[in-house]
């Protein structure tokens, strides 16, 4: 590390990179506590009024609840699907495996707007009401590849002989999964849940097309941007979301490191 940053230019590059990355986010809390409704410098005075307003807007509460509900279900479903797919990829050989895995991972690179429009057409053709359910279906589609990618590495690094040893010692396949496989891939599962949750919480395009009257948080925010005087409230909300995201990430990393330490594994990967 130190060798990397010893060079003056590299140090400058790194500093600029971080500023570029985080300065816009830093503006969120600054204007969230600024009393003027105009988002511009110089700042006027300090206020917590926007946070107070947040509490009062009922539509916002509904949007947050909808988003959390969708994100929770999406995280659970895509992680479950991810476990099945990663397990199959790691342990079984079947015809067309490469092609099937490729097709499952494809939504990772498909333009989201194309996916959203296609799904809209399909759902309308099927006569499905646009609702939280349709958003969940769309989000599961885009979150599952991420879950598979994360869980794949967890399942691939699992030594087959651990499972064989457990079978040899008298366990059946469910016992082996519950007692050996699950505890050992748990860090991957938690990681997958968190990532899928975050992606779903963030996701705008699919939710915009498929949410119907159940607006998610990003869709609600989008709607609010039409009213300039609401901007500081949006800033306040953004501040809370960013703080929560950072907290969540720290928690996830803490859990992961604790798991690694408990197992005595080498410290590799992770977010922080």
């Amino acid at each position: 590390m130190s060798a990397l940053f010893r060079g003056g230019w590299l140090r400058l590059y790194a500093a600029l990179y971080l500023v570029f990355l985080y300065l816009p986010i830093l503006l969120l809390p600054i204007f969230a506590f600024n009393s003027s409704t105009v988002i511009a410098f110089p700042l006027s005075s300090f206020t917590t009024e926007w946070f107070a307003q947040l509490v009062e807007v009922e539509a916002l509460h509904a949007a947050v609840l909808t988003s959390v509900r969708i994100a929770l279900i999406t995280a659970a479903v895509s992680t479950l699907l991810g476990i099945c797919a990663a397990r199959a990829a790691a342990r079984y050989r079947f015809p067309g495996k490469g092609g099937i895995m490729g097709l499952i991972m494809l939504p990772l690179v498909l333009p989201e707007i194309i996916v959203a429009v296609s799904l809209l057409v399909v759902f309308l053709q099927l006569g499905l009401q646009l609702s939280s359910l349709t958003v969940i279906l769309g989000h599961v589609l885009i979150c599952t590849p991420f879950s598979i990618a994360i869980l794949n590495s967890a399942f691939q690094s699992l030594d087959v002989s651990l499972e064989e040893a457990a079978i040899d010692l008298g366990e059946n396949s469910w016992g082996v999964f519950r007692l050996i496989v699950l505890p050992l891939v748990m860090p991957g599962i938690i990681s997958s849940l968190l990532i899928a949750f975050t992606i779903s919480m963030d996701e705008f395009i699919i939710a915009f097309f498929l949410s119907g009257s159940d607006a998610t948080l990003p869709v609600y925010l989008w709607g609010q941007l039409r009213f300039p005087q609401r901007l500081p409230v949006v800033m306040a909300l953004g501040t809370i979301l960013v703080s929560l995201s950072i907290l969540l990430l720290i928690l996830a990393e803490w859990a992961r490191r604790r798991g690694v330490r408990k197992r005595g594994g080498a410290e590799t990967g992770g977010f922080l």
Partner: protein
Amino acid sequence: MALISLQGINKYYGDYHALRDINLEIAEGEFFSLLGPSGCGKTTLLRSIAGFEMPENGVLAIDGQDMAGVGPNRRPTNMVFQSYAIFPHLTVAQNVGFGLRKSPMPRADKTRAVEEALEMVGLGGYGPRAAHALSGGQRQRVALARALILKPKVLLLDEPLSALDKKLREQMQTELRRLQRQVGITFILVTHDQEEALIMSDRIAVMFEGAIAQVDTPEGLYLRPNSRKVGEFIGMMNLLPGALRQDGAHLLADIPGLGAVALPRDFLPDGAAPGPMTFGLRPESMSVLFTSSELPTGKFVDGVVEDRAYYGDMTYYEIALQGRQAPVTCSMKNMISRPVLSRGDAIRLAWEPGALIPFAET
């Protein structure tokens, strides 16, 4: 009656014939080794006995019971894996006691059984430790205790010592042997290390390319290999091309470099005919004559030291002989009174015709 009986076992992976018509009987309480180079099918055979591989045909019986369709969790076998397969998220005691989970034994008895098993492998008091914090040697002992706690009829060991360093490996060889005598369970060991197999086993099956080449005691394999391949694989062996011919009542061997020698009539196994053949001769069956007063016990020839390897207790000499392209290897025990020869020294080499091993393949 044999504890384990294999009849006509074949295993294919696609077109690859992994096990070729394996017939084998292993007795109760025997320390049996499957020895061969990597890819010879020894691990596949072990895994077939464990139940992880299902042979396509043939009969595999343990203790008189046909094992067809019986899974590894219902066979009276337990296995020590090459990687030891210690469950990293459990403690040492939880690892060792894993197989007792489903046993109706009271909890206190289980705890005692675990502690006894740990003491048996020299890890008494290690129970509460985290399994991942153990050293390689300790992991192996935990794997042994975990497999033996279920009192299997057969313990299967898949190259259990290959990951250990030399000193530890030698120590574990003795210890495994002692453990086997103590518990009296049949051990089947897979190894590619011929020395390890010779040291530890009651009997050894040598395997090449999916087939068993020879089954014998360590002495039997070393002194009477039934093929050139086995002879070369077990210990060191000089291979000397030559010919055997009938000379009246005698057999006469003609070996370029060593000369002609008369051999007893029973030198050739039944059914073998004289003709061109390869003779095997172990390095210790030849000796360098250091002084002219030493009387040769067998035949002798003149030669020149081409190279030497000094091992402390032994020295291995490469000796060039007239009439032979490649030098022969001869081993000598080092003694205070004996000089260690150097390259270029002219010496006289004695050899024992009785130690020649005939191989029909040339």
